[in-house]
Every structure is written in structure tokens, then in C-alpha cells.
């Protein structure tokens, strides 16, 4: 049975320490409830950009972990970012891919290739240091410490079901520009 995205996010919130998190699409509504007012910036308004936004953060802050919560449909929009990330070799970047096989936000239309698309192979082929899939929540929890400490770039394909909310059913949250400003201020304070 596929993992519930909210359970995965709760496990991440409990273990992430001071990691910067970059949610996008259907992880955004749940994440702002689970981890409000924290070191996060959502990729909002430019679908597909979460991985690259995370790369920029990881390069700017090499001593801090950066964790991207990507979607399969989102990553397909900027699939070349796998090679860009691999080429830039950020040791502190973890790329979590929430794989549900559909564009949930726009009505759950199947993504090209559906669930057969193998992002683990793609990440390995692009040159990520490590990539693997996780299908079980207990297994994910066991792996969490290494997910936050292992040398990156690391991609973990998470086999999940659909989130309870999407950015269309729960439109709250700050605009991207406000999130950017808030995170800049927080990072400026804590370094």
C-alpha cells in the first residue's frame, strides 16, 4: 500500500533538524500545517522549479541540508534539472520525489508514462551520488537519519498515494515573494 504523503511529511518534520525544506504542489498545504513558520520556501507559481530552487539554496548554504519535496509531474517539467544538479554536485542536497503517477492538483490526470516512469534510474543516469525507492513508511523512517546526512546529491523516490489537500482545494499560504523574504531574514539571523 502506498504511503500517505502526510505521514511521510510528519516523519520528515520530526527528523529534519535545521534543514531547509522546499515543498511544491500537493506537499505545500500539508507542510505548512505540519511545519509552520519554519525554514522552508515553497516553489509556488513556477511549477517544476523546486529542484533548481533547492540547488541554489544548497550551493549558497553548503553547511546546511536542503531537502526538496518534488512531485513526479513537477520534475517531468524540468527533467534536465537532474543533470544540472548532478553536474553541480551539491553534497548537502536531498531530493525527495513524491511519486503518485498523476497531476493531482489539476484533477489527477495521469502523468506521461504514469507509475512506470523510473526516476531512480534517471537520477542515477544523470549522475546523482545515490538514488533509491522507498515504498514503506517504516522503511522510510529507518532511512531518515541517513537521508539527512548522506553525501548528496541523493534522490529518494517515495511511492505515495494522494494527499488530502492540493493547492487548489486549500489556497492558503504565503505568496512566493513573502516566503522568499521570510526565509532570507531567518537565514540572515541564524546564518
Amino acid at each position: 500500500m502506498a504511503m500517505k504523503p502526510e505521514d511521510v511529511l510528519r516523519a520528515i518534520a520530526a527528523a529534519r533538524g535545521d534543514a531547509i525544506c522546499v515543498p511544491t504542489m500537493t506537499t505545500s498545504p500539508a507542510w505548512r500545517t505540519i511545519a509552520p513558520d519554519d525554514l522552508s520556501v515553497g516553489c509556488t507559481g513556477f511549477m517544476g522549479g523546486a529542484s533548481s530552487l533547492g540547488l541554489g539554496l544548497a550551493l549558497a548554504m553548503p553547511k546546511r541540508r536542503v531537502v526538496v519535496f518534488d512531485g513526479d509531474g513537477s520534475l517531468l517539467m524540468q527533467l534536465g534539472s537532474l543533470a544540472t544538479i548532478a553536474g553541480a554536485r551539491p553534497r548537502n542536497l536531498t531530493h525527495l520525489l513524491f511519486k503518485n503517477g498523476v497531476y493531482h492538483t489539476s484533477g489527477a490526470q495521469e502523468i506521461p508514462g504514469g507509475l512506470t516512469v523510473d526516476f531512480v534510474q534517471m537520477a542515477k543516469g544523470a549522475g546523482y551520488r545515490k538514488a533509491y525507492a522507498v515504498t514503506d513508511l517504516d522503511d522510510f523512517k529507518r532511512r531518515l537519519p541517513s537521508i539527512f546526512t548522506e553525501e548528496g546529491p541523493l534522490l529518494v523516490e517515495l511511492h505515495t498515494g494522494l494527499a488530502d489537500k492540493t493547492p487548489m482545494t486549500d489556497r492558503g499560504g504565503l505568496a512566493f515573494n513573502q516566503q522568499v523574504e521570510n526565509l532570507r531574514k531567518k537565514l540572515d539571523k541564524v546564518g
Partner: protein
Amino acid sequence: MPESIPAPLIIDTLKDTFREARGTSTREPLGWILSVPDTHQKTVLAALDKERALRVVTCATEDEANAVAAGLWIGGEPCALMIQHAGLYASVNTIRGVAMDGRVPIFYIIGLLSREKDRDLKDSRHSMVRYAEPLLDTFGVPHARLEGPDDVHRIPEYYRLSRERRGPAAVLVGLETI
């Protein structure tokens, strides 16, 4: 008549620009170049390969370069995007989402491949040359032409402008760099 700009002049100007942006910080690299390789600026890109003070991240698309720039900005790092006019057209939605709506200052150095030496941009035979300035105008992106070595002062000027207005600003490289 426009003239080609030597690569070392552009690189030294970028280094000065980033040095000013960093203030007293001695952090390395001095700044970041996010590049989607551009034929028009290939001598600059080749020279950057040997440059230790600036780090180049080659991106697969201009969309990525814009989003990487946002992450660098959040983390306090200076950067510039080196792209081609075709890349400007390709990444319009990301420029809107990141630099405009997101109010992320992004400085673009845009190569005008195929720009004719003896024609103004608006009279070019090539649509990709003709549309660059009108597109930037449509989006309200301030821009200036680098028509020769005397114009490189536009680099720090428009870099600073992007920071001041918290949004995009661009310089257009008129002729192929040497």
C-alpha cells in the same frame, strides 16, 4: 557602429560587480554565473572555465537557471545569468513567477545571436533579435545594450538596479564577444 567586447573585460567587470555586492565578506567564490551556453558569449564562457574567483553552473534550461538564482539570492549569494535571446523567450513564465511576482532580483546578460552589425535591433532580419527588447518592455524589465567596451559600466549599473527594484534587469550583448 557596435563593437565586440573582449571576454576579460566582461569577466573583470563581473568580478568588480560581485565584489561590491559582497561588501566586506571574503567568501568564495566571489559570485556565481548561471549559464545556458550561448554562442554569442562563447569567449566569455571559455575564459570563465579558467577563472577561479567565479563559479559557473551550467544549467540545462533557462527555467532552471532562474530558479537556481532564486535559491542563491535567498542564501545571500551574488549571481548573473548568461543566456541567449532564445532562452529569454523559452523561460518567460519562470521569469514572471520568480523574478517578477517572486520579487527575486535577477540580473541577465543576454546574447543577441545573429544581430547584424549594420542594423538596429528593431530592423534586424531575425525575429529573435527584433523581439528581445519589445518582450522585455512588455514585461517592464529594464534593459540596456552593450554595444561595445565603453558600455560595460552597464553591468554593475543593471546588477544594482535588479537589487534595488527587487526584480529582473538585463543587459543585451550586441555583438559576439571576442
